[in-house]
């Protein structure tokens, strides 16, 4: 089993209950495969993620963190994109301070039907992380 | 009338004066075919095609009875052949 898992990086995904969760669920429904070491924690809105959580994830051993943001579809209002962007910027700074490569945090808007784009994101992120961290 | 629990079938049987002919026939037929199929499988795994030849019955009947036996856990499904066409079936021991 270890062999299989070595081929993929550990990625923590913060997804949102109403928008990106359905897309990730649909990726499963459509049997669009991505590495099984991608784990999802679902929260109401991507602009509610605390930078401390992300830093904690690296500390605990996650290779990468991905924010599946609501984008303009957010049910809580259009300010979500801007706020999520802001907190990512803040986290990047904190990461730099701690010597964590900022590229290990990625964000993309995943709409509720963006299953394919989610899977693509996961695959490229995984490849990137494997190349930079496990090479 | 006090009815003893667990023995009510007898009461109905007496009331009806026996059991329907068709139910009896159906059971007999099932037992016969079940026996044939199980005997055929006794020597090893077979595909439905092979069972059909062995028991000399229409293949759709074999499918029906065999699948029922699979459902009841008496027979189990083996592997599919190289052409991905036919599965084999074997006794579930």
């Amino acid at each position: 089993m270890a062999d299989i898992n070595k081929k993929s990086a550990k990625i923590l995904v913060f997804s949102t209950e109403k928008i990106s969760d359905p897309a990730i669920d649909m990726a499963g429904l459509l049997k669009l495969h991505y590495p099984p070491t991608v784990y999802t924690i679902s929260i109401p809105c991507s602009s509610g993620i605390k930078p401390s959580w992300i830093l904690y994830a690296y500390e605990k051993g996650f290779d990468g963190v991905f924010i599946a943001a609501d984008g303009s579809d957010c049910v809580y209002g259009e300010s979500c994109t801007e706020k999520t962007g802001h907190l990512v910027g803040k986290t990047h700074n904190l990461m730099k301070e701690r010597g964590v490569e900022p590229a290990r945090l990625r964000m993309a808007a995943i709409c509720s039907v963006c299953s394919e784009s989610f899977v693509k994101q996961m695959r490229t992120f995984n490849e990137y992380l494997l190349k930079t961290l496990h090479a | 009338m006090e009815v003893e629990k667990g023995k009510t079938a007898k009461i109905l049987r007496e009331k009806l004066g026996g059991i329907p002919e068709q139910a009896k026939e159906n059971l007999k037929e099932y037992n016969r075919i079940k026996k044939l199929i199980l005997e055929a499988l006794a020597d090893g795994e077979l595909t439905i095609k092979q069972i059909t030849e062995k028991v000399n019955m229409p293949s759709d009947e074999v499918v029906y009875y065999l699948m029922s036996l699979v459902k009841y856990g008496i027979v189990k499904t083996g592997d599919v052949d190289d052409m991905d066409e036919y599965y084999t079936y074997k006794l579930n021991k």
Partner: protein
Amino acid sequence: MKKKKIGVYICHCGGNISDYVDVEKVRQAVEGDDIVFLAKTTMFACSDSNQRDMVEDIKANDLDGVVVASCSPKLHLLTFRNVSVRADLNKYTYVHANIREQASWAHSDNKMGATEKAIHLVKAAIAKSRYADALETNKIKAIKAVAVIGAGVAGMKAALSLAEKECDVILIEKESFVGGRVAQWDSLSTTTETGKEMVKRLYNELVKHENITILTNCEVIENKGSVGNMLLKIKKTPRYIGGTCHPEDLKRAIEVCPVEVPDEFNFRLTTRKAIYKNYPSEYPQTPVIDIKNCTRCGACEKVCPAIDFSEKEEILEFSVGSVLMATGFDSYTPAYGEFGYATSENVITLPQFKRLIDTQSDKLIYKGKEINNIAYIYCVGSRQTDGENTYCSRNCCTSTIHAAVTAKTKFTDINNYHFNRGLRTYGKQEILYADSLSAGDIYLQSYEDGLPTVTLEGKKTIVKINDILTNGREIEVEADLVVLVTGMVPRADNKVGSLFKIPKGRDKFYNEVHMKLRPVETVIDGVTIAGACQGPKNIAESVNSALSAATKSYSILSKGELETDPLVATIDPEKCTWCGACEAACPFDAILKIEKGTKVIADINNTVCKGCGMCAPVCEPDAVNLIACSSAEIMSMIDALV
């Protein structure tokens, strides 16, 4: 604190999960956890018998919480919360793990990986379960009144249905008259009643109900509060006609009005004056002055004493418990030159054609020319392969055939040529198609990659097609009139939709929560959707959805009280130093500044807070946490996932 005791159920989902995830292995992996009292696998966790078993397990073992690992929580979170409730647990002690969509299905190519992931996911759920405490829902008073937005047939029927259920109804129409699209049609398919008669009948029923307030010329401009108690601000544009206007006076007023503008009611086929009424029996009976186009020349005032330019715009306020959206659709406007639209004078749209046949008698005349040969081009603006509208507009096939048959019956010497992409007269509408065929209508079908073309040759308008039904031969028709069968598109003006933050689907129509489980509800609590604003529909289908939405809105409010989610933000008064960052971040005005003892801190209005968590990351002292998504919980989940 006493150690928690929870039960874990891992679902096979009849193979959907167990074909790829070794559920027994998952069970064994979590069995030993200190708070896991029992761990079981089940064929269908959602089945009635398993639910019964769960209730028994909880009661018999005095469990404090339950974790079910099965499909997406979208499907069964509520189911299992209810199971917990039936076992006398608080529903928030329930935690769900999604090991189907996010494990077995997503990783069906890697059974070991899927199993490993499932184990982690269930462990994370168990970690979360440690923090999942009993929460009490907020009970709030629900105002037994519904605002129905849009007074088309769907809105009118919804209003009637609610009024019959002893709900107060505010029926709000942006236009000056009620009836929406149906008022624009005379003949309707499957009935002898005209659209106008149907609107009249519904209106007469509406006015019988004292608990219905009909507001025309009105728009919702502000929405405060949330389900149960929503305060709506409504802008009412004046009609500038006071009281009742004598019909003769009105006639004269219209005559003297010097302004002529394209008449939207007739889809710009004709013009109307600045003072107008679309048809005699229109409701409300009072005409209206279109103030945007009025030049205030005062000519009408002189002939009609009821006209009153001193009327002012009003702002009305209503408190309602729920909002039912029935804002309808727009008809697709073809692009310039699309099948000759706007470039050929013989090309019109289906709604225009329908108005044309309604307004003419004996002979069909368009632009002074008698029309005999009519070409209908289907799917204009629908089923686009290179445009945005990929969907089928559902109703246009039937609507076109109905219009074509009506034209043929009403006028002499009409030849109908239908250039279609495969007829979709579903259900009983098939009979209409058969009738039109028998009557001699000719249908030509284009290949998906070869739509018909409209060309102008001198004054002639030629429609050409490679007809599938004639072995792909090129066939041409010289048409006197080309009717573009335009589909339904979402309303271009979506101000009211944005006001209520109603999400849209791929097709840009309002999106329901679930097509089958919750077809008239939106993710916004208390806001339901009805009719064609949710997607293309015919009249009967719109009415069905309107009545469904009315039932849903009513059932939210019928008890006079409702419960809101306790999953809101919390403030740690110790840490809070009131900087105002959270207040600025909250899109719902749910954060207030309060004085607590000597300290000024933030406070959450629980009924308004939607629990989005936007306030949490902006808090420098980390005083804000979301219930069920607190830092402690998230971090313990991260621990479990690693």
